[in-house]
């Protein structure tokens, strides 16, 4: 028996023993566990699963053991992922620090920074948020203005961020700040880690079209940040941000797998609503749904194929942009179809005249609009593919 097969068997046995049956189902909205200084469990199995995975060091299975990771090889890691998928294990926690900042810290952090920040991440003790966007810097991220001014032993941060997911619930933020106002816009930016409990930080949730939301505006009023919290080189933040966003794209396309009702089974949900009075639209609707279903299958096969290609050592440049673009657009189309199938039942907002599921779907539909914007809009993904993958010539006006 090969070592990998043996490993697979150990993983399988361990997961079967440790993942409670109640957590081998898709995660409903509201039952996602976010790691952090305050973890909220809704039932006990979640706590047990969280603790077992933490103690096994499998929150970060492939990180080095000296920072609390599991030390698995890339192959072992994909065995673990596939075994978890096989058993339908829920992710024990969601943590932006691990998905996005972690890989960047592993590569560019100082030894001290790694000790200080990675170890608590691997234990799920810190909740992170991403402070990149600003009111005037979205797609054009390099035009951020939030400033960090050198005060000898610390930076003084002033300005504001917007769209910060869970800004009000996070312990720490990784932020892009301007550290040189005179340099060309890409060259005056740094990546700074910022304690959200510091004096002068204020986070305010933003209402979205889908209702109350977890997205915040964050204001900084003379916030003091120790100089040790600068990652990489001073004014070298743009390069790190680009790396980090690659991780974000892969995380976003993965994220869909966890959260219901994204990545939902369109056909079966539609059939819950279709038996209602037959209407003239039905045949057209069914055709569109089959097509959407086939498109989704093509997407899933592509995820498999590119995964296999990466394992075979082929470079898969631009892959994250493809995944992010296709996945978010497909979800949006599916929700629209589902809403069409629900007819009037898809228009409810509040109270008991509509079922909980109906309202959840309606809100998820409204929410799907944000997915093709957040994390780099579809247009920006297309720019990335056109320029970096296809190497089409540059238009001087736009960077």
């Amino acid at each position: 028996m090969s070592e990998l097969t043996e490993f697979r068997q150990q993983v399988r046995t361990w997961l079967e023993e440790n993942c409670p049956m109640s957590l081998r189902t898709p995660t409903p909205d509201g039952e996602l566990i976010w790691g952090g200084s305050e973890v909220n469990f809704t039932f006990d199995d979640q706590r047990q699963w969280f603790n077992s995975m933490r103690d096994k060091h499998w929150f970060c299975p492939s990180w080095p053991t000296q920072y609390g990771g599991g030390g698995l090889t890339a192959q072992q890691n994909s065995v673990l992922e596939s075994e978890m998928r096989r058993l339908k294990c829920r992710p024990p926690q969601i943590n932006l620090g691990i998905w996005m900042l972690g890989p960047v810290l592993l590569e560019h952090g100082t030894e001290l920074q790694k000790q200080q920040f990675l170890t608590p991440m691997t234990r799920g003790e810190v909740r992170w948020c991403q402070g990149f966007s600003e009111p005037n810097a979205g797609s054009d991220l390099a035009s951020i203005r939030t400033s960090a001014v050198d005060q000898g032993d610390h930076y003084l941060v002033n300005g504001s961020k917007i769209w910060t997911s869970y800004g009000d619930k996070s312990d720490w933020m990784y932020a892009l700040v301007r550290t040189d106002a005179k340099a060309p816009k890409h060259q005056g930016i740094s990546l700074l880690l910022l304690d959200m409990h510091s004096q002068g930080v204020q986070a305010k949730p933003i209402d979205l079209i889908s209702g109350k939301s977890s997205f915040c505006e964050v204001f900084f009023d003379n916030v003091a940040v120790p100089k040790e919290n600068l990652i990489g080189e001073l004014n070298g933040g743009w390069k790190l941000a680009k790396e980090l966003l690659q991780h974000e794209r892969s995380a976003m396309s993965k994220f869909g797998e966890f959260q219901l009702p994204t990545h939902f089974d369109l056909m079966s949900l539609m059939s819950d609503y279709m038996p209602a009075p037959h209407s003239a639209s039905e045949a057209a609707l069914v055709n569109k749904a089959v097509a959407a279903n086939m498109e989704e299958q093509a997407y899933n096969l592509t995820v498999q194929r590119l995964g296999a290609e990466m394992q075979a050592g082929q470079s898969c440049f631009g892959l994250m942009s493809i995944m992010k673009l296709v996945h978010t657009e497909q979800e949006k189309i599916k929700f629209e179809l589902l809403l069409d199938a629900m007819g009037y039942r898809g228009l409810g907002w509040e109270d008991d005249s509509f079922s909980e599921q109906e309202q959840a779907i309606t809100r998820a539909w409204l929410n799907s609009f944000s997915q093709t914007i957040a994390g780099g809009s579809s247009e920006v993904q297309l720019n990335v593919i056109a320029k970096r993958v296809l190497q089409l010539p540059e238009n001087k006006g736009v960077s």
Partner: protein
Amino acid sequence: MSMVYSEDDRMLADTAEEFLSAQSPVAAQRALRDKPTAVNFDEKIWQQMLELGWGAITFSEDLGGLDFGYKGMGAIFEAMGKHLSASPMLSSVTLCGSLLQQLANAEQQTWLTAIISGEKRLALAVDEHARHDPDSMQTTATTVVDGFVLNGKKTMVIDGVSPDGWIVAAQHNAGCSVFIVPFSEQVKVKRLNLIDARNYAELTFNDLKLPAEALLGDAGNSLKALQQALDLGRLCLSAEMLGAIKALFDTTIEYLKVREQFGVKIGTFQALQHRAARCYVELELAQSCVIAALSDADKADANLASSASLAKWKLSKVADLISGEAVQMHGGIGVTDELDIGLYLKRIRVAQMCLGDADYHQARFAALAP
């Protein structure tokens, strides 16, 4: 499921690429169009393909095959698509070969070995209407004392002019039977001249007498085998379309990088960049569907029907998109016969319709869903 080509598959692909770009480039297809022959493919090149062993790729060694599998065959079809190279590979080897492999008795197997070596060439006659629809054939076979009598009309028989014989599907015993019909003057053959300038025929059978040994498999019981052969054909056609759209896409991206208007390369225009990027994304999705279907074919997976339909559907859609964009982005020159784009466009259109168009496969996919 193995979603990548193996070393061996890749070597096969490289050989195919080398051979076809030297011996059967698009210019050769253009020349054939301008000076049609009886069969509209180059018989010399076809023989060379067989000498390279391409006819044997998917068959087991005891039949004289190479046991290489459909992933290898997919690589060949992709290369043929890229170079628009016409050959009876689909009609004779894939479609008829698969039927013989599934249904032939010991004696009939001589047809199979002859096909693999290229000594003989067969063509499959299924379609009867303006659309592919193997479930509603009207050609009938009647059992008589010493054989069968065939009546009806077939259309769009791929490579149907001048083969050594046809395999004909017909209504028989309240089901579907398939017969080997050796070439004979009694079958009325009419050439169909299509936009892709290949070899298609319409066949008419008027009380055609067939001997008992013409029947392949059990009487009235061959629809499943027929569908399986068609599925293999569908995914080879999908691989061919994949090769063709890759070639079109590459040419178009090149053009965007060199053509200048308004003092800049047209590839700097974001309106075009985004459309090009979408084509690329769709191409990636299409490729995944093809390789998944090839891989199912190799495993003789029960899923083959649905993955072949997915592949044929997706490729038809994406081929529409990319051939349309290729013409549009080339502007006026894109609609001239001088450029090869039009040759690709026409071949793609025919490949889309053959063995079921996108709508057919969408409906089939839905019906096959568990």
